[in-house]
């Protein structure tokens, strides 16, 4: 959305294609207030940010949207195909910003294919978008921000969260304040613990876990069984980069950024000059950085095509990204980006 708004404000026409009926990606499910600069939306709840941007996009005379359509193909002659079950659109854009986000990772344990084992995002979607709770008692695997925030959201929906477990000896990336919020509400965070299996007649009825040592090996005698009907996996994200793959955009495996990420410069431009990336698809990070990257890509795209986008603003936004990433929380991302740039295009 931010890429479209930036480009369209500079005079270009933009088309936003999303396979969902509403714009906003993961933001629409977030009930907590966002961090970052107040002047750039911090303090507003995630879904409110999404609603505001969506309203701006829908009201903009130079932005069109194709909702409920999935981009299913991108050809090397510059044609892109967006389709739903009935219609098909051929689009020949001059610049493309890919902001497809990420998908959730999976871990292996016995019966991990049972109904009742869900990705954290899945329960967030059901709960916060459709108002349906898929179970009453939850075990959450993974103590990053996703796991800890979804635990809080479950408490808000009056569900019972038995525990958040993590195989690491310390928090897996969650902000300390998010972790503190759930612990004072009675949800323990059990570290050095992993899930070994879920059991039940034909859905999750209990989850078995075991403690691990410093080499992540199970320690006999430390087993704990949780009586739960849902196990939520919040074990990491990896970029959704199929389109880039199809196009032959240069990608490298950078663990710090979540997996295979497209090589890109500071404006988000990939190895193919007409294609930009922004958000989690460019490397797993945050909503604030995704919005900044989107705006930078939108402005640069418009500038490429001769529209009145401000070079100063692009530099300003890159500086803001730097400022945001000065936190120790961004160490991993900065390492990943360094590694990515060292690979060269």
């Amino acid at each position, binding site marked *: 959305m931010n890429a479209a708004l930036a480009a369209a404000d500079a005079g270009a026409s933009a088309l936003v294609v999303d*396979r969902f009926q509403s714009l906003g990606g993961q933001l629409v499910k977030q009930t907590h207030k966002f961090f970052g600069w107040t002047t750039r939306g911090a303090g507003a709840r995630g879904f409110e940010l999404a609603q505001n941007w969506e309203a701006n996009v829908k009201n903009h005379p130079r932005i069109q949207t194709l909702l409920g359509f999935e981009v299913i193909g991108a050809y090397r002659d510059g044609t892109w195909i967006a389709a739903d079950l009935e219609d098909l659109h051929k689009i020949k854009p001059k610049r493309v910003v890919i902001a497809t986000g990420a998908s959730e990772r999976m871990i292996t344990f016995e019966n991990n294919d049972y109904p*009742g*084992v869900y990705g954290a995002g899945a329960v967030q*979607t059901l709960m916060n978008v459709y*108002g*349906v*709770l898929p179970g*009453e008692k939850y075990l959450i695997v993974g103590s990053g921000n996703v796991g800890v925030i979804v635990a809080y959201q479950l408490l808000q929906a009056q569900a019972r969260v038995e525990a958040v477990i993590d195989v690491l000896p310390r928090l897996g990336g969650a902000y300390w304040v998010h972790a503190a919020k759930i612990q004072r509400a009675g949800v323990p965070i059990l570290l050095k613990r992993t899930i070994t299996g879920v059991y039940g007649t*034909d859905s999750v009825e209990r989850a078995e876990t075991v403690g691990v040592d410093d080499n992540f090996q199970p320690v006999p005698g430390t087993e704990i069984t949780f009586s739960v009907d849902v196990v939520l996996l919040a074990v990491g994200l990896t970029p959704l980069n199929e389109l880039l793959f199809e196009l032959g955009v240069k990608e490298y495996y950078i663990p710090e950024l979540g997996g295979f990420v497209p090589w890109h410069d500071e404006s988000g431009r990939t190895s193919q000059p007409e294609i930009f990336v922004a958000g989690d698809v460019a490397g797993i990070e945050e909503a604030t950085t995704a919005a900044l990257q989107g705006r930078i890509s939108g402005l640069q795209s418009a500038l490429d095509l001769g529209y009145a986008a401000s070079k100063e603003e692009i530099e300003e936004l890159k500086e803001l990204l730097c400022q945001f990433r000065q936190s120790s929380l961004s160490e991993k991302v900065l390492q990943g980006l360094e590694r990515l740039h060292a690979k060269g295009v």
Partner: protein
Amino acid sequence: MRRITVHPILSFPPKKKVKFTFEGQVIEGLEGEPIAAALVADGIYKMRESINLHRPRGFFCAIGNCSSCLMVVDGTPNVRTCITPLKEGMKVEVQKDKGVLR
């Protein structure tokens, strides 16, 4: 499994109730919500069976990425019920095989 009625931040505007069938049984859901959400709200969590070992599968990602929620809807197999909106009178069945296209 239930519908959320009390929430500190979100409000769920009332939608029209519609009837549809699941495995021949008439149940209710809200018009326009994903079929999978309606099933879960009604306590149904098994959506298909795995092809070879016939293990029960429910939804997993809820956004159309993983294929765990594929069901036969009005005779059409491989319907991603987590992103397909519910309509009055839909006939929803557990998919037990690779899906037969008619």
